[in-house]
């Protein structure tokens, strides 16, 4: 029954898609991005290729607690990320081919070589994934720019790795304006990746605005820490 509802939802979404298709205002790039998202959402709700699962029943008609991962589940990633399979628990670690050809770039890296496993190394300069911003600003400081360029180098080298650029703000002012401000910050970082030649398919942006503070405290210190962009390596965190 619920599946039927979902099917109707899917039909509605298709109508949306069709009419957007008729919009001459919109470019094909937008179409490409709308269709799969709406279709995926609707299709998966009905469980294509698998039996539809009823929600777990409980005595109360409320949400089962603890069934939803507390953090955002990792976004879709390629089924196999080369280099990811060599976990430390596998005993014999195989060093990927790229790791044997270290490259040296950038001030932030200070001559430290980049290998595929650099982003798993807490002592590597690329372990720094956060850049901070001034109040109401989305301008990168020279140090931040340097760090972002370091990550750009890594991404250019390992073109199968994807990152999500997450923008955040402090808690002051309007929630939705803060979403827009966080988006500006994330796009400022994404722009650097783009300018450094990172493939557009390797990064996406997401603004949380003020919703997910790094520091739950109040006052200038907490605010300064919360005005930030985090570079999140998908599948690596």
């Amino acid at each position, binding site marked *: 029954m619920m599946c039927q509802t979902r099917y109707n939802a899917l039909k509605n979404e298709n109508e949306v898609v069709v009419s*957007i298709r008729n919009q001459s205002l919109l470019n094909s790039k937008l179409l490409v991005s709308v269709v799969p998202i709406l279709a995926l959402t609707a*299709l998966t709700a009905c469980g294509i290729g698998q039996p539809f699962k009823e929600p777990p029943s409980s005595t109360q008609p*409320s949400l089962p607690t603890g069934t939803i991962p507390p953090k955002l*589940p990792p976004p879709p990633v390629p089924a196999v990320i080369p280099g990811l399979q060599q976990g430390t628990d596998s005993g014999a670690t195989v060093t990927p081919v790229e790791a044997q050809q270290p490259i040296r770039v950038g001030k932030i890296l200070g001559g430290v070589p980049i290998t595929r496993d650099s982003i798993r190394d807490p002592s590597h300069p690329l372990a720094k994934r956060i850049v901070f911003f001034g109040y109401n600003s989305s301008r990168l400081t020279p140090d931040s720019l340097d760090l972002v360029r370091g990550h750009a180098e890594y991404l250019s080298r390992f073109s199968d790795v994807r990152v999500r650029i997450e923008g955040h703000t402090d808690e002051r002012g*309007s929630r*939705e*304006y803060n979403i827009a401000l966080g*988006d*500006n910050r994330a796009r400022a970082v994404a722009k650097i990746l783009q300018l450094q030649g990172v493939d557009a398919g390797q990064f996406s942006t997401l603004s949380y605005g003020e919703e997910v503070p790094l520091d739950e405290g109040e006052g200038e210190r907490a605010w300064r820490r919360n005005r930030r962009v985090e570079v999140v390596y998908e599948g690596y965190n």
Partner: protein
Amino acid sequence: MRRILTSTALMLVMLIFSMSQASAELRIEITESAGVQDKIPVAIVPFAVEVTGLQVDIAKIVEDDLIRSGRFSILPRNRLPSNPASSDEVTFTDWRSTDIEYLVVGRVRGGANGRVLVDIELIDIVKQRRLFAAPANAQGQIEYCCSFNVTAGRLRRTAHLISNLVYEEIVGVRGVFDTQFAYITSVGSQDQRRYALYLADIDGQNSVRVLEIAHPILSPTWSPDGAQLAYVSFENPGRTTIMMHHLASAERRPLISLEGINGAPAWSPDGRRLALSLSHRGSPDIYVVNVASGQMSQLTTAPSIETEAAWLDDNTIAFTSNRSGTPQIYRKGLSSGSRAERLTFEGKYNAGASASPDGTKIAFIHNDAGNFRIAVQDLNTGVLEVLTNGTLDESPSFSPNGDQILYATKEGRRDVLGVVSVDGLVEQRIRLDNENVRDPAWGPER
């Protein structure tokens, strides 16, 4: 690909869209109404109950409603000189010493099929006459309002409707005691936080959970008919989604989920369109989507931030833009070629506007010497007035009669809600035990 589908499907299955009674109760108190110079003295006599097992004290609900409006002083029950149930039973000399100007009396009787009949009367004690009178008919007879024939389950709502009638008759403004509001709660520590969307009656009663998920929900906005909410959800990985949520059926459908932001939904007064903000083409801009057809048009194109649309009428929106270097509020018509006109000039931060129902005022967040407060601006005179005194006030929304503004504020680190009258004279606080409550949206008339 299969793995992706499976995990997404599982996650969607685990999102259950259910309505359930809230465990925690909203607490409302009047924090300030001393500024109201001449409160109208009123007495509300406990209704004569001629039916057994009645759970609802209608007179008490009406009394609480009128007190919360801040416009009335209510004669305490223990000082009532008598307990008339109708105007026939009122002896005017009894009431002279109490100084009250109006008297509400009523009677609750059993009706057919377990229904309940409620009769009320409003009496002008000064002029010694019965109010709620309809014009005389051809035979010269005068009919009086009001009788209600309802199920017992609707008595609380009936009480709010009685409050509306009394308020409108005495004050001359429509009452909003029968309305609801939507709000968001967050509970739990950083790593295990859960977010929920709730509805409650405007007196804080009957709160109902509409949705609970492990990801942020924000910006609920009502359809003008009150049947749906649109809001922003982070439930899908990597992208935000504007969801349309039909309240009666609990059916949800994603309206849009593009790269970048999908934010700030605002329903047009005619209910046919939704204004929203997207950044898939670069900087955030405002778009208008036809809800039925999905047809979308782009309203702003500046390289700055344009977001937070609020409809002043079916053809005009107010919105926030930082094109001047600081966030300020602008107005723009929907017709092509219409230019944006700046509305706010005081201070370096004016954002998050909400429009009054008649479109003559906006309420917004104004940075007042480092404090973020709710201000209201009359669009005819341009006069800005700061209404609140918090440090991080946000999310204003007008009552359907335009007289009050519901907003989010803080007490210490706790998120609570406030209600302030547009003249700034009456303030209320709405708190929720052990939970943060935020992002309120006042619903339309029912």
